[in-house]
């Protein structure tokens, strides 16, 4: 009897051992985070800042791999197809929730093909205009858009870009269409706004704060419920009389579908630590944003945001008739 008991214990032990070792050992080699946009952009910057601290927390190097193209769906698709071992992850922004509507034959489902790990940050957006644009306030601007409509030009950084989404929301909130002028990225769009070639846009604070502070462009409102610390004079859209225009570029960390729970926990702990890091907080502040709270840097919060955002954007994109394919 005793022998059998020992044997059973041994057998159980050998069965459990690899599992325990796996959990303890993760990560035993560098972890790759796919960023589905070009290096140097706002999402890339956010990812590198967070990745740097996560690397310290995990005791393994965190590599950022930029897989740009097709509005972020190429990189997301690669992450969805990766091994669910925790060594390939994805940082994606609001585009994760608009892709299912924008791309009618998307080869992955954002809700079922990924393991959500946590929200990272929500970057506010600003409604901006060329420096000599006539309107004095957001209310004036709304009247002007209603009166002049398609005579006004609105620049965006391409289909599915944050500035494209904000533009659709702005035009829906105002109830009038402007002439949309797409660009290949934020850089060229900002060049033409600075040069007065186009009238309006709406982009992330990451791209606009410095130009606003320098007086190179005019800002009308910030698209979140509270004013920003580094642009205290800029009213919110709600204060300016356009509460329907509320949008922020939220970023989330995902793994492929079926990530083991202990790996999710380990990554989530590292993410929370990264978001509490002094340098990250400071750099985020300079970008005009803040890390989300520890409660939001969770799988549950990310799932909730993703689900509700997919539902929010579907009718807006369909009404605008903007599809990528």
């Amino acid at each position, binding site marked *: 009897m005793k022998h059998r008991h020992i044997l059973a214990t041994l057998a159980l032990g050998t069965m459990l051992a690899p599992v325990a070792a796996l959990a303890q050992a993760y990560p035993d080699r560098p972890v790759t985070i796919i960023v589905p946009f*070009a*290096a*140097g*952009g706002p999402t*890339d*910057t956010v990812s*590198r*800042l967070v*990745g*740097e601290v996560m690397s310290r927390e995990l005791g393994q190097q965190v590599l*950022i791999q*930029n*897989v*740009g*193209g*097709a*509005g972020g*769906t*190429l990189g997301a*698709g690669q992450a969805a197809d990766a091994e669910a071992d925790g060594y390939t992850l994805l940082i994606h922004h609001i585009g994760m929730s608009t892709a299912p509507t*924008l791309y009618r034959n998307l*080869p992955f489902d954002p809700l079922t093909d990924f393991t959500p790990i946590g929200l990272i940050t929500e970057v506010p957006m600003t409604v901006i205009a060329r420096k000599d644009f006539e309107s004095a306030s957001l209310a004036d601007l709304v009247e002007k858009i209603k009166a002049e409509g*398609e*005579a006004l*030009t609105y620049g965006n950084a*391409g*289909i*599915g870009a944050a500035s494209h989404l904000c533009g659709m929301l702005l035009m829906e909130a105002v109830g009038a269409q402007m*002439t*949309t*002028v*797409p*660009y*290949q*990225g934020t*850089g*060229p769009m*900002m*060049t*033409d706004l*600075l*040069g*007065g*070639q*186009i009238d309006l846009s709406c982009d992330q604070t*990451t791209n606009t*704060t*410095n*130009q606003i*502070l*320098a007086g*190179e462009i005019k800002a009308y409102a910030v698209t979140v419920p509270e004013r920003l610390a580094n642009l205290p004079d800029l009213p919110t859209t709600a204060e300016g009389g356009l509460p329907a225009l509320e949008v922020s570029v939220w970023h989330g960390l995902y793994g492929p579908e079926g990530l083991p729970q202990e790996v999710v926990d380990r990554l989530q702990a590292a993410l929370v630590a990264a978001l509490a890091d002094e340098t990250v907080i*400071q*750099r985020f502040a*300079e*970008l005009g944003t803040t890390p989300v709270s520890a409660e939001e840097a969770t799988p549950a919060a990310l799932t909730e945001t993703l689900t509700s955002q997919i539902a929010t954007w579907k009718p807006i994109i369909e009404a605008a008739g*903007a*599809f*990528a*394919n």
Partner: protein
Amino acid sequence: MDIFASLGLGFATALEPMNILYCFIGVLLGTLVGVLPGIGPTATIAMLLPITFSLSPVGALIMLAGIYYGAQYGGSTTAILINLPGESSSAVTAIDGYQMARKGRAGPALATAALGSFFAGSVATLLLAFFAPPLARAALSFGPPEYFALIVLGLLVSIALAHGSILKALAMIVLGLLLGMVGQDIYTGTPRFTFGFRELFSGLNFVSVAVGVFGVAEILRNLESEKNREVMVKKVTNLWLTRDDFRRITAPVLRGTALGSVLGILPGGGHILSAFASYSAEKRLSKTPQEFGKGAIEGVAGPESANNAAAQTSFIPLLTLGIPAHPVMALMVGAFILQGITPGPNVINDEPALFWGIIASMWIGNLLLVLLNLPLIGLWVKMLTIPYRVLFPAIVIFACIGCYSINNNIFDVYGIVFFGLLGYVLIRLGCEPAPLLLGFVLGPLLEEHFRRAMIISRGDFSVFVTRPISAVLLALALGVVILALLPSLRRKRAEVFVEED
């Protein structure tokens, strides 16, 4: 603060031992990645971004900037030696540089590239120091109609790139334009010629196309017969320029520097035009245009100076307005942000040591580059004596790795294979790859700016002639066409486009 005090501050910053070291590391790395076919500054800077976290902002940015303009020096090395341009600018260098190498004049070609680049880099840095803010302002008056007119002018004058039949050259430009259309249309989001592959949504990769039609096609051609490549190896004669060479390159270097400096400032694709424009200008002005495409030293001196001048002046919109002129500059924006500095009009006032330090470091970097590159010429030329059976697989492998590292997109590697075969077929048919690349690079820009101009003007064509800059550029373009059609000049043109076979 006056300009001399500012420059003094800049040099004091740039000459700190650590910063000189970072500058040296940057230009050395830049030269190396420039030399390795396919791997360009974009991939290198992206890979090095995490390391820059631990450096001081000045050190980090000096190093990254060094990688960028260092790669311009290195890139011409492979273009000349093995016909493998890594960037649009060195594609032009490959046309005559490689022919010089085939004639045993690789040494003088490399020396010309290094000296031309150094001169252009120094002049452009001075320009950057003295006139950056007003120049950036001026560049902002270039809107979509102006860029459209500029590209039309560029395309028309660049037809001189071809040295074979004009019909074949036009066919190649059109093929290039069509290839440039692959990808998602930015205005409607409609995928064009993507055959359902999302990997093709962002279009064909320039490096794949260039490495394929120039490099791989050339390798295939070389493998045809044993004789050709032995000739190329054995005839390496002198390494340095003759007095006559110096006389021939002076004017092209000066013109290239001027053209490159002006075009580099324009954020909407001006830098791409610089090398093409300089080559066309040199061919037009030359007394012996028939030598172009067969190893004319002016065809190396002009474009090399132009592309290096443009590389320096493309920092102007970045440093003064926070606008990236091209993908490498977008990475530099990322580097600034990671260091906690948002590039923009405030940098010059808020961070004078950084702003002027970077500018001063560029001059130091150019000096380091010329000191680094001239002694290396002997070494590079020796590379040509490596047995071809060893060299060509290495070239192909490095090209594939480099290409893949840019976007981590396997289609870029398939692209090398496809365009290698296409390039070989084109060589057999006697068609030039350079006009194809020109069409490929400028076609999408032409369409983008034309459509944007039309959207903003709401369909009114008169926008191209009512805006003064655009009107002048289009008038110049019309002038080019009239000149080409004038009967008295027709004979001369017939000489320019001599049928080769």
